Structure formats: structure tokens, C-alpha cells
């Protein structure tokens, strides 16, 4: 695993990373409560525990880069800069949501951020990411496509087809595998004969590294180490982010497949606690700073809930809009 770099860590940078992770954590915790209150329906997959991956990776992307994500994508959307109001409104199914209430939790989109969703078929986003990257290459652009997916996706044919194609055509794709050890309830070692995902990527001649996905500095450093090479035409890379989801797979999961002790052990090395401890130890942050960031994140979520609650519904008369592109002429 690559080592985190602390040498250049400043107070400002450290607090930025922590702020972003706290925004996501606070958002997800509120979603959990809102689901219980039946304000949010459908499937809901929370990102608690995996925040370092989205936050660390997204900081290295520019506004013209593209992002393809999964159904556990609230964190990706927020870290990408999709306004929290629009994400929350989408979960409420409101007109002001980032998909006008047609996508919900699993299908967040924001074309202005080049955030291409929100794909709820496991591995279904990988071929699309390959195509976005192909377009960049054909147009001689230097923008890259970051593609998030889980360890479950490596069992799908689309993973293998897409890695091969991206490598064969030397496309600017950053494959970001969030290995949280479970495909819903099936542990990686119960589904894969080879559990080291980097080996699978190397079989397609893709540079691949395993990263401590609970350490946002390690994530940042790992992405930094490959992103310029991808941008400069060096072909795709895969980073296997070893992480863990703290909450259930979805709101319908009694978690019969894992021990409470295992969850508790991972929580002790969670991304927020890890960074907080380090920043304090380096004297870059006080407990007051932490409290302030947490309060600010909570206030932003409060405002997002208020925005969503107060937003209008899409009229039923517009049900069939957007099935086909709307002609402006």
C-alpha cells in the first residue's frame, strides 16, 4: 500500500479534507434518520466509512474531468460539488432535485459538474466511463474520467471487458475500486478465487495499486501519483481503495453476514477519526476546530433538508418529459 504523505500537510489542507468528510458523514446520518421518518423512500445506500475515497480522489480532478459513479454515490456527488440542496431534494423526489425527482438516491446527475451518475446496475458504469474517455482521446483533450465502482463489480463481465478496452486503447480512465469487502452480503473471498483486485487489473496491463482507503491522505497521494500520467496519455490506472462500509448495505439489510466486532474494529480506524487524530497530533487542529466543522456541516444539512421540504413536486403532467430529448427548435 502506498504511504501517506504528511510532509506537506498544512492546517488549511487538513481542515479542507476533514470538512468535506464531515459534510458527507453528516448528510448520510441525516438520510438515515429521514428514511426512518419515511421522508426518503426507495433504496438508500449510505457511504459512512468510505468518505476518504470520494474526498481524497475528487480533489485531484478538474472541472472538465468526468465522474461516473454507482448507487452508493451521495458522497461522490457532494465531494464533486453537486450542491447538497439539490442532492437532498432529489432524495425527497422533488422538482428541485439534481435529477428532477426521476432518479432518487441511486441516480444523481449533474451535467454542469460532468457528474454522470448514479448507475445502479453493478459494473454498468464502467463501459460508459470508457466511452467518455474515448471521446476525450478522439478529441485530443487532456481530461480524464474517474470511474467509481465496488468490489462486487469485479465479478461482472463488464468490469473485465471495460478494463481490457481502456488498456487496449490507452484511454484516460482512472478506475477507482471501492473494496469494502462485501458485495451486498457476499464477502469478497466467497465470490472471487483471486481476492487481490490489483492482480486482475495487471492482467490487462493496467497499472494498479492497493491503497488504504480509510486514510484520506493516502487516497490523495495515490491518485496524485497516477493522475498526471493518465492525463498525459499514459493509459488507465486502477486504484483499489481498501475501505469498509459502517452501515448496512441498504436499509433492508439485517447484516447477518458480518460480526459486530468486525464493524467495530473498522470503525476505530475510520477515515474521520484517523485524520482528526493525525491533525491534532501534528498540532494543526484543535478540538474547537473539529466542533466548529461538525456544526457547520450539520447546519448545511439542516438547510438542505429545509430546501427539500420547501421545494415543489414535479407536476404529474410532466411525467413523460425527458424520455426523449426536448427539441428547442
Amino acid at each position, binding site marked *: 500500500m502506498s504511504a501517506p504523505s504528511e510532509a506537506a500537510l498544512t492546517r488549511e489542507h487538513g481542515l479542507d479534507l476533514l470538512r468535506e468528510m464531515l459534510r458527507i458523514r453528516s448528510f448520510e446520518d441525516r438520510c438515515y434518520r429521514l428514511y426512518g421518518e419515511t421522508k426518503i423512500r426507495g433504496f438508500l445506500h449510505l457511504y459512512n466509512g468510505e468518505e476518504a475515497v470520494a474526498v481524497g480522489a475528487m480533489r485531484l480532478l478538474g472541472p472538465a474531468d468526468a465522474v461516473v459513479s454507482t448507487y452508493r454515490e451521495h458522497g461522490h456527488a457532494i465531494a464533486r460539488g453537486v450542491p447538497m440542496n439539490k442532492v437532498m431534494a432529489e432524495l425527497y423526489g422533488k422538482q428541485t432535485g439534481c435529477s428532477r425527482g*426521476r432518479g432518487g438516491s441511486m441516480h444523481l*446527475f449533474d451535467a454542469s459538474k460532468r457528474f454522470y451518475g448514479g448507475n445502479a*446496475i453493478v459494473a454498468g458504469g464502467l463501459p460508459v466511463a470508457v*466511452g467518455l474517455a*474515448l471521446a476525450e482521446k478522439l478529441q485530443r483533450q487532456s481530461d480524464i474520467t474517474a470511474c467509481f465502482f465496488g468490489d462486487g463489480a469485479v465479478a461482472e463481465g463488464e468490469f473485465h471487458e471495460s478494463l*481490457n*478496452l481502456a488498456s487496449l486503447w490507452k484511454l484516460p480512465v482512472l478506475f477507482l475500486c471501492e473494496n469494502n469487502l462485501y458485495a451486498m452480503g457476499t464477502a469478497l473471498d466467497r465470490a472471487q478465487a483471486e481476492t487481490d483486485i490489483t492482480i486482475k487489473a495487471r492482467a490487462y496491463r493496467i497499472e494498479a495499486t492497493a491503497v488504504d482507503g480509510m486514510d484520506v491522505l493516502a487516497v490523495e497521494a495515490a491518485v496524485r501519483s497516477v493522475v498526471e500520467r493518465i492525463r498525459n496519455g499514459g493509459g488507465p490506472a486502477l486504484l483499489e481503495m481498501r475501505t469498509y462500509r459502517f452501515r448496512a448495505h441498504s436499509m433492508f439489510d439485517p447484516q447477518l453476514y458480518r460480526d459486530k466486532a468486525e464493524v467495530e474494529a473498522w470503525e476505530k480506524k475510520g477515515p474521520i477519526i484517523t485524520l482528526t487524530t493525525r491533525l491534532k497530533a501534528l498540532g494543526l487542529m484543535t478540538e474547537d476546530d473539529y466542533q466548529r466543522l461538525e456544526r457547520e456541516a450539520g447546519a448545511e444539512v439542516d438547510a438542505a433538508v429545509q430546501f427539500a421540504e420547501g421545494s415543489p413536486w414535479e407536476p404529474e403532467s410532466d411525467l413523460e418529459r425527458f424520455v426523449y*430529448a426536448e*427539441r428547442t427548435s
Partner: protein
Amino acid sequence: MSYRDAVREAVRGALKADPRVFLMGEDVGRYGGSYAVSKGLLEEFGPDRIRDTPLSESAFVGAGIGAALAGLRPIVEVMTVNFSLLALDQIMNNAATLSHMSGGQLSVPVVIRLATGAGRQLAAQHSHSLEGWYAHIPGLRIAVPATIDDARFMLAAALASPDPVLLFEHLYLYNMEGELTPGLERVDLDHAAIRRPGRDVTLITYGWSLYKCLAAAETLAKEGVEAEVLDLRTLRPLDDAAVMASVRRTRRAVIVDEGWRSGGLSAEVTTRIVEQAFYELDSPVARVCTAEVPVPYAKHLEDAALPSPARIEAAVRSVVTRSGSG
């Protein structure tokens, strides 16, 4: 020119007209296309724009969708509709949904060309007619060029559409010879076309079956029955207005569809006629479809399974007889 030449000219014209257009698929480059449609194009346009792919239907169809999202105009050739099943996730869950699911922020202007149909003794796995199946899916446009004119110009219309378009080219038609209509420069993707006018019955069809209908109509004309032949051209959207206008004139309809009968396109067209023109019918709607079997290999069995002029004629005679004096 042949139908194959017409499609090739369509692809070449699109590549010349718009730098955003490129062709990708299995064996489109060095091999020249498994039906020789893209022969010579690699030499003319180079490997970036005539792009051979591995046998990874899901990845390259999905890549076409991604490239379309990014503003390019990909033509994805899936060698045959049979293999498109390996890309069904991308077609159905991404191409068809992304515009709606993103609240109109995204559009997917990809064109997917597929060879379809039976008639060449290729047995069940290479003889499917699934265009009616795809026409079930909101978000897709389904077009079926049956004539030299449509083979030549439908692709441009499909590329001009901001929506995903599936173009189904019947494998039996590639060798068909014909002339382009002089002066024709474009066609649309919205309207059915009357290929033979007639007063007694409307044969509603598309694709290769068009020619079976035209042959049947010639035979029937000798018996004094004038059949109108309506080429649907697009299966989604269906041109209801053209169907109803013709059926209201002839008061009888026979639908000829190489797909299976149960739950198929012929069922959809029948239902629409019943919904919109029931009281103007002089006879129940009849259908000629492929027998409900996986298409078999042996020539006589395959012929027996598919719509034929003889079966179409028999269906027409039954509706004309049943309707009495009209």
C-alpha cells in the same frame, strides 16, 4: 447499387460530413465488416474513426453511449441483433434511461446498427428478429430501413437525432440491388410510407417482409384484390396516423412481422387498430408472423417458420372473404 453499398455510402457520407462521427464494432475495420458494409472505410478514414473492437458487446456499446454523452456521434455496429443481447444492459439501462433519469440534463445521440432476421439457414441463435422487442422500450428510437433510399439516408436522420437510435438492417437485404430515387437527399424517422397503393386491404409490414408483401400483392392483383402495402419504417415511434389512414380506406388489415406473434409488434399494431379504427373495419385484423419456434436450420423448416408470400396471400384471402360485400 446494392443495399450494402447504400449503407456504406451512408456511413461514408456521415464520416465526411461530421468530424464527431466514428464507426466502431467487431471486424468493421480490417475485415471490412462481417457483411462487407464498411469495406474500404478503414483505408479512407483511419483506425481512430473506423475502430475494430474486441468481442465485448457490452463494453463497446457502453463506450458508444459514453462517447455520445461526451458530445461525439458514434455509429456502433453490433454484428447481429443476436449479439446485442450481450449489450442489453447498456442499451436498456443506460441508453434508454439516461435522458429521463437525469431530468433531461443528458442525451445519448448514439446510433446502433444491427443486422437482423432469418432466411439464411443460420439456425436459432443467428436468426432472431428482435426489433419489435426493442420497440417496447421508451427512450429508444427503432428504425428499419427496407429500401435502398432508406438504407442510404436513414443513418443521417438517426445521427441528427439527439436520442439513441437502433437501425435494423435485415441480413437478407444486403445483396438487394436497386436505384436511389433521383434527387432524394434526406428521409425522416417519423413516418411510414405506402410502397404500393391499393383499395381492398392494407398489408402493414417492415424490413425484408416488405418484399414478401409486395410479391403477394402482385399475385393478389391478378385475382382482383388490390392490396396496399405500408412500410412502417420506424417501429418506435409508430406512425399511427399513417396506419389508421390506410386502414380507414381499405377497411381491412393484415400485419406481416418476422417477429414472433405472442406479445410482439404485430400485437401492438393490431391493438392500436382496434383501439382507433375498430368501427371502420370490415373484417378482423389478421397476422402473419414467424412460427413460435426457435428458427430451425433445415431450409424447408426455416421456410415453413417464416412469413412467405403464400401465407400472406392466404391471410388476405381470408379477410377479404370474411368481410362479405363490404
